[in-house]
């Protein structure tokens, strides 16, 4: 295996931000569940690797109704959070992978070579999460959808959202625990009553959906990949949207 010429192991968030800089040439390693196989198989040869294991970016905190999740919080920790995030987290891989994989790695993973990744993006979009990141120009807090559109050169620090009044999650069941999401829909009803839906398993990253089963397919781009065809996803997406809307109605 080719070794990185430089491996940085920050021991605080400030140190992590300083060593990340503007992100040029930096390969960020959170839990390692996505990046390490890329290195093992020679698809990625880091010049500078930033290992976040000891960077002090893990943890879930609450301030009133605001929940903040640090970037290196293990996915398994999220299982106990309210739907849709908790239900989605429980559906990621198996307990060993969930205990090692991090929120930040999952959110920033983007689309993989064979299948969509980033299972947690959907529920976080439904929850109207905001992302706090650092990079060129310093710290920035922005809606998650903006962050997902372009996070090149950004180091995610945490995500925050308001606890929902209700949440729901529907997914195509996986044939094996190690598969990524074929297609999943998350929904959250905010304290004010508005409902927001989002889908994971799309052609690039998760997207917000209209609250309409018949309008969902036209609002997103569906891909053909190793897990499923775009045709199959188009047939299934309205079903999952209906299930989530029904669950949210029943929770009212």
């Amino acid at each position, binding site marked *: *295996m080719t*070794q*990185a010429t430089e*491996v940085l*192991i920050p021991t605080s968030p400030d140190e992590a931000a300083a060593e990340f800089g503007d992100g040029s040439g930096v390969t960020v*390693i959170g*839990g*390692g*569940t996505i990046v*390490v*196989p890329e*290195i*093992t*198989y020679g698809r990625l040869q*880091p010049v500078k*690797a930033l*290992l976040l*294991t000891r960077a002090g970016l893990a943890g879930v905190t609450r301030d009133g109704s605001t929940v903040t999740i640090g970037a290196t919080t293990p996915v398994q920790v999220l299982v106990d959070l309210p739907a849709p995030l908790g239900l989605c987290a429980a559906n990621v*891989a*198996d*307990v*060993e*992978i969930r*205990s*090692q994989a991090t929120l930040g790695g999952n959110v920033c993973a983007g689309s993989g070579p064979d299948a969509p990744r980033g299972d947690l993006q959907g529920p976080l979009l439904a929850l109207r999460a905001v992302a706090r990141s650092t990079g060129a120009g310093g710290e920035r807090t922005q809606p998650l959808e903006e962050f997902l559109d372009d996070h090149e050169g950004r180091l995610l620090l945490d995500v925050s959202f308001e606890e929902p009044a209700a949440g729901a999650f529907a997914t195509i069941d996986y044939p*094996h*625990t*190690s598969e990524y999401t074929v297609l999943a829909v998350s929904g959250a009803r905010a304290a004010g009553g508005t409902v927001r839906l989002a889908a994971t398993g799309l052609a690039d990253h998760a997207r917000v959906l209209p609250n309409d089963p018949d309008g969902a397919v036209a609002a997103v781009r569906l891909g053909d990949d190793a897990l499923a065809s775009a045709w199959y996803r188009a047939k299934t997406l309205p079903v999952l949207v209906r299930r989530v809307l029904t669950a949210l109605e029943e929770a009212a």
Partner: protein
Amino acid sequence: MNLSVNGVTHEIESGPLTTLLDVLREELAITSPKAGCEQGGCGACTVLVDGSPQRSCLTPVAAIDGAEITTVEGLGTPEGLSPMQAAFTHHYAAQCGFCTSGMIIAAHAYVEGGGTDAHEAIQEALGGHVCRCTGYVKIIAAVAAAARGDSFDLTVTAPSAGMVNLGGVT
């Protein structure tokens, strides 16, 4: 970097991004963790890191500097098998043996964590472990037996002490 493996401290010479799996197998010649898929999909490389089961193929050694590692060799000895090793032996829960080390480590952690003999809970705990022989029925039976605290007379149920294979193939 240092690792304590099965109670013995080692100074690690491999590079910081070398996987724990490669350190164990190539540098320390501990071959029970298996290089299966090497992308976290099979569970054959699982070891205990500070008591928690973790895929060694996904773990850069620098991320766990100073940790205590337990492989299946550290659970028991051929003369004194751990309860989970004895349960696997009694129930003939290994066929080719390739998945056995990871299965035993994950099952050991499951029972140590208070896991019961409920099949659904065992399936959830071992959900990331693939048996290429599809010998799941006997594996789950072994874990359930260990969770219940069953005891076994291996002089009757196992072929012989010399044939007990703790770590499967190398």
